[in-house]
């Protein structure tokens, strides 16, 4: 028998991007044109294939269960940890895999395509907890906390938002008062992803509210610090398994050495973290959007009305086409932002562009997916109603769509 393997030399993956060569984007001016290599390298392709297969076999079958029960998906987290997915970009000397941002985005995209809750849990661990510790922590911080987080042994969280301070993060009310070798913290944080399971929190408080953003500090808080309490779990529309709770600080004692950076660095740390974190949410959104399209294509080919599959109707095709084109555009915006960051170039505007467009796309695709599923799409029998609920949050957290526009406008107008 002829060896089939010898006769064929072409791989065509699902990602059309793989084979296209170079292209350039023009934005506002000629000077801002980018050269971009669309090809994923060999590692990135292997990572994509591995995470895709893993997520489809191990995460997808339990996504509806976790959504319904709101249980924190410990089983998923343990499996992700075993594959180093809880410490993707942390360098190996601190226990991570030391990969680039693009690999990170690909991984979050594939995880979220199967289970959006698990996607945000992983994104928060990697980019909201580990990244700022690595970027702003001193050697003691890094040695003490990074290996625990990167190995997935402990879960991390990022606590910025408060009941009266969301988009206006600098308006926070949680206070920190220096006292001997400690800071004493008082206040409430809200909507903190992972907090049901987390043991390490990067939490923001102000030493002097009249200083505005210049008074904000970032503290590394361990769950068992006196005066620290995890409050009620939010009953949410989507990403229901992400363990999102309130945090309550009542004279919480934080050792002075647990400040990240210097007093007053907190706001910069929070914003720099979000610049990076946004790519994780964009990746989550692309993953959700892709799942909407996968489900819709499958359903449209199976479902028959008027004696033919509904995929034969041009009005249904139009919905699929709009999904496909926008998903590709969103993914390209995201990969461009990640590549810019990997090359050490400026990426803040591009990261916001990717986040805004991907999350709008996810929501649009989810609405279309439910539409294509007709009445069945409105029930829990099919996953698209969950995808629609999960998609919505990508337009809200890590900066709402409106806030992304403000960031982009600021960059455009200088």
């Amino acid at each position: 028998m002829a060896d089939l393997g010898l006769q064929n030399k072409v791989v065509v993956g699902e990602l059309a991007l793989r084979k296209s060569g170079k292209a350039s984007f023009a934005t506002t001016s000629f000077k801002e044109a980018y050269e971009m290599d669309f090809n994923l390298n060999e590692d990135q392709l292997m990572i994509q294939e591995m995470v895709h297969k893993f997520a489809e076999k191990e995460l997808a079958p339990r996504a509806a269960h976790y959504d319904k029960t709101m249980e924190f998906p410990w089983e998923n987290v343990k499996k992700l940890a075993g594959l180093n997915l809880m410490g993707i970009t942390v360098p190996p000397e601190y226990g991570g895999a030391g990969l680039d941002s693009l690999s990170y985005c690909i991984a979050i995209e594939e995880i979220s395509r199967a289970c959006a809750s698990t996607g945000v849990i992983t994104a928060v661990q990697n980019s909201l907890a580990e990244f700022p510790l690595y970027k702003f922590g001193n050697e003691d911080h890094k040695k003490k906390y990074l290996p625990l987080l990167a190995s997935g042994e402990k879960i991390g969280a990022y606590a910025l938002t408060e009941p009266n301070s969301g988009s206006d993060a600098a308006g926070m009310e949680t206070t920190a008062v220096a006292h001997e070798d400690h800071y004493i913290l008082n206040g409430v944080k809200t909507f903190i992803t992972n907090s049901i399971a987390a043991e390490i929190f990067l939490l923001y408080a102000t030493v002097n509210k009249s200083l505005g953003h210049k008074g904000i500090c970032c503290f590394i808080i361990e769950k068992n610090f006196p005066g620290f309490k995890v409050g009620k779990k939010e009953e949410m529309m989507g990403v229901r398994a992400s363990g999102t709770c309130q945090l309550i600080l009542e004279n919480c004692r934080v050792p002075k050495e647990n400040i990240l950076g210097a007093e007053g660095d907190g706001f910069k740390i929070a914003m720099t973290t979000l610049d990076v974190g946004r790519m994780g949410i964009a990746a989550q959104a692309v993953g959700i959007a892709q799942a909407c399209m996968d489900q819709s294509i499958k359903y449209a080919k199976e479902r028959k009305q008027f004696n033919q599959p509904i995929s034969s109707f041009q009005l249904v095709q139009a919905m699929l086409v709009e999904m496909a084109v926008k998903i590709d555009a969103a993914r390209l915006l995201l990969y461009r932002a990640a590549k810019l960051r990997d090359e050490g170039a400026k990426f803040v505007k591009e990261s916001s562009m990717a986040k805004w467009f991907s999350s709008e796309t996810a929501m649009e695709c989810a609405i279309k997916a439910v539409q294509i599923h007709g009445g069945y799409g409105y029930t829990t029998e099919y996953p698209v109603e969950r995808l629609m609920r999960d998609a919505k949050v990508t337009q809200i957290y890590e900066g709402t769509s409106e806030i992304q526009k403000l960031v982009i406008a600021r960059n455009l107008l200088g």
Partner: protein
Amino acid sequence: MKIIVCIKQVPDTEAQIKINSDGSGIVAEGIKWVLNPYDEFAVEEAIRVKERLKEGEVTVITLGSQQAKEALRACLAMGADKAVHLADEAFTGADSGATALILSLAIKNMEYDIILCGKQAVDGDMAQVGSSLAEFLDMPFVSNITKLEISADKKSAKVQRETEGASEIIESTLPAVFSAQKGLNEPRYASLMGIMQAKKKEIKEIKAQDLGIEKETVKQMSKMHLLKFSPPTQRPPGRMIQGEPRDTAIELVKLLHEEAKVI
């Protein structure tokens, strides 16, 4: 303990196979290539043996096109230590026997205690390379194993295979060739670290001339020649039985009994 695992890259089991216009092969376009699923069990078992014994070396070997390196790399990412790639245009068209013979020539120059392979490759489904390889190497062969235990002195192995109504437990001296069946283990996913480390591991290329083989020799080695591929006959469409439930049930039972002869 030195373990060699023979692997093959095959079209993904979910790929839609289309035959090319002259029937000489399949259309490569649109096909995703993967590590043969049964070989995945073999590689996993080899790595587990090494982990259990806390010593050893796992070498994967394939005969295939340049693209087959992807499959070798996938094995290295899972945890295999080394890879050998028999890559030469001269090997094109080798039948199962010739493939096994070429593999045996390469393996003769290597060290081994156990040789593992999948029970069959899911593209050609010939299930011949393992047994032929054992023959060329003059070694015992047990097919379709679902369990593998190495003796304390590492001179023999106990393997299990499932047959109709019973499990066979077989003891064999080592070295030996075993082919892996589903059930042997649950293959792991390559970790990110595994993927990164795979890049640093050696893939040794062996050419025909390194084994003293010429293109003509491969032709002579192959006793079988593929004449052509033809598409499988179309399955007849399903038949709908219409009518009242009572009548359709009677009709169905009749058809199952008389036509399909399944009851």
